[in-house]
């Protein structure tokens, strides 16, 4: 049974104790940030680009009903068969229906966080279908039965050595750490999967409203094969992934790839315009587009969090986040980790289960600073904190503590009295190192005692009055 609350503190302690994880994360994430920064610095109008993108995306989201209808209409005219899914379950049902109808047995999949969100792979295997992840990282995660720990770099928590070991154990190849050899080994298995698969499934990075086209961004070419080689193609797309037109694509592509991997553009960008038409040599016979809501409409209706729907899933906020850098993605027990996940998980999935997450941030604001579409992530975290407190999702003593604090801080005499009492009686809490014993602090760090006389007590307060 699912516990009622994810204890994030326990998760962080586990991650911190995992030395290998610490080394892998520190190494990979500082590289990701470095690459991004170098590229951003080479783009003088980066800030204006962010402004423009935020403006465009927010405008689309503000009229999402209309924009979605327009997009759907165009996509249908391109020959996509559209299916609407209110939640994860109906999305899975639609997909299995399609696969059953086409008597599909094997599916090749390209990386998609939405299919992770709806837990598609597990469902497909329950229905006797074989689903093969074809993104190298996802493939390694799949064969080692792990969940992706990052939204764009699924196995960022693993080292080259880990990958070598996994591929040695699972594929029976000779142990090697050479990326070239490992890629070649995966390629061998995956190539035959592409050729024999009956259907391909991919996520969607952008839907172009004016064209009804889908855009898929990747580096390995596996997505393009998944969506063009098998006779049946299913695109799974969140209803918020729209941008107005082809003219906006270069802006969003740049923002996405620079933020995600520090690339000016990814190796492959596929723009999909429906199934193969008569006279065309390549492409699937049938193309389906499954449009998934799964809680997004609720976000849309809450103006406080609506901007979260503008997220383009680049992962920059994960890479820069001091907390994510220490704990890694698995600690969040959600498909969406890091700052964006701390907001999305409670809002999309369960406020109760994920209620620790919005509080697990230092509010340093690094996430907001790197977000390519300027989502005020740390502001949303604050909003969500206040929200969760309103619905009594915090320990009772914490609220009482802040009530008392507010009472004192709005009554200066009381405030000074409390400070006086604090400094006078703190000896009761002295620890052996000369500091104070403060729960949840002094186990890790020395806690500096209060000054014998606070600034105000010396200047105006009790002690001075006593001296008179």
């Amino acid at each position: 049974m699912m516990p009622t609350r994810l204890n994030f503190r326990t998760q962080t302690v586990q991650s911190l104790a995992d030395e290998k994880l610490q080394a892998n994360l520190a190494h990979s994430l500082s590289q990701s940030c470095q690459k991004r920064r170098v590229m951003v610095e080479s783009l003088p109008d980066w800030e204006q680009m962010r402004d423009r993108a935020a403006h465009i995306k927010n405008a689309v989201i503000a009229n999402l009903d209309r924009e979605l209808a327009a997009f759907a209409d165009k996509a249908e005219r391109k020959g996509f068969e559209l299916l609407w899914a209110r939640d994860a379950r109906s999305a899975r049902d639609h997909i299995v229906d399609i696969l059953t109808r086409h008597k599909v047995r094997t599916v090749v999949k390209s990386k998609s966080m939405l299919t992770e969100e709806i837990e598609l792979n597990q469902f497909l295997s329950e229905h006797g279908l074989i689903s093969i992840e074809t993104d190298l990282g996802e493939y390694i995660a799949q064969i080692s039965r792990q969940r992706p720990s990052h939204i764009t770099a699924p196995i960022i928590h693993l080292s080259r050595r880990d990958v070598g070991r996994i591929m040695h154990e699972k594929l029976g190849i000779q142990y090697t750490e050479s990326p070239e050899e490992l890629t070649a080994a995966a390629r061998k298995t995956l190539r035959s999967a592409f050729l024999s698969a009956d259907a391909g499934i991919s996520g969607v990075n952008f839907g172009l409203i004016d064209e009804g086209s889908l855009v898929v961004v990747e580096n390995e070419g596996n997505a393009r094969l998944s969506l063009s080689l098998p006779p049946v193609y299913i695109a799974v797309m969140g209803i918020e992934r729209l941008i107005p037109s082809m003219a906006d694509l270069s802006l969003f592509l740049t923002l996405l790839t620079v933020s995600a991997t520090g690339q000016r553009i990814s190796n492959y960008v596929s723009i999909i315009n429906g199934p193969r038409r008569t006279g065309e040599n390549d492409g699937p016979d049938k193309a389906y587009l499954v449009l998934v809501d799964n809680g997004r409409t609720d976000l849309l209706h809450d103006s406080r969090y609506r901007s979260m729907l503008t997220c383009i899933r680049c992962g920059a906020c994960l890479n820069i986040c001091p907390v994510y850098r220490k704990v890694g993605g698995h600690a969040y027990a959600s498909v969406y980790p890091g700052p964006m996940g701390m907001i999305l998980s409670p809002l999309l999935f369960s406020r109760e289960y994920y209620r620790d997450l919005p509080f697990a941030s230092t509010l340093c604001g690094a996430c907001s600073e790197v977000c390519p579409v300027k989502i005020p992530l740390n502001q949303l975290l604050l909003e969500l904190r206040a929200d969760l407190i309103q619905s009594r999702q915090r320990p009772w003593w914490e609220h009482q503590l802040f009530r008392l604090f507010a009472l004192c801080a709005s009554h200066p005499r009381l405030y000074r009295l409390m400070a006086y009492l604090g400094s006078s009686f703190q000896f009761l809490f002295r620890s052996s190192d000369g500091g104070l014993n403060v729960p949840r602090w002094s186990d890790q760090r020395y806690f500096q005692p209060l000054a014998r006389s606070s600034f105000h007590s010396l200047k105006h307060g009790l002690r001075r009055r006593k001296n008179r």
Partner: protein
Amino acid sequence: MISPDNVALFVPCLVDHFYPEIADHVWALLTAIGYKVSVPKEQTCCGQPAYNAGYRHEATRIARHFMKVFEECACIVAPSGSCVSMVKNQYQYLDFTSDEISRWQSLRSRLFEFSQFLGQTSAAQQIEGSFPHRVYYHASCHGLRELGLRTGPAALLSKLEGIELVDQTPSREQCCGFGGIFSMHYSELAASLGSDTLQYCVERDAEYVVTLDAGCMLHLSGTFKRQGSTIEPIHLATLLYRAMGLTPTR
């Protein structure tokens, strides 16, 4: 440019109770460069601890008190990027009435973080001194990202004779791990982030870590001390005070 000769000092609660000397140092320094400093008696806290923990109702109560105390002051200076940003950038999200909002708008333009104030006054040219030590400037998050204090503090430091500033790689614009109540709820994580800052300083032979916030200091000094390090976290005001060879005004 800031013209008023009278400056009101806001002493944030962490400074007041843990590092009162920082307030003394700000006071002495502002006096030394020609300002008349006052300390409104009824001041307490800006409300940030409650606000960041999500208790907006409680924060509003404290914020109302803050406004009442400082409303009449022509210019307010505080040695904390975090508290100043709280008042300037977060009060708008409190349960204020429209009247309170307009009072806040007038107040926020008169409030300055200590280094921000020095950066905007010509009197700061009088700051001269020597600090022959190797110093790492830790850009405190709220000052850096919410007040945009990117180069100012380091520029002030580099005016001092003999000072050696540890090269600021952009990757070190990273949180020290304090984060208010975060540092208690997630003490292991906070301490681990603090240790990273320590390691960075050790690798670069820094003798001091300069910050703009007592919160960073409390957390960093606690981490450093537990690990037996002699590197001293120090507030920018204290460093300037020592470098200028000032004496207490109080």
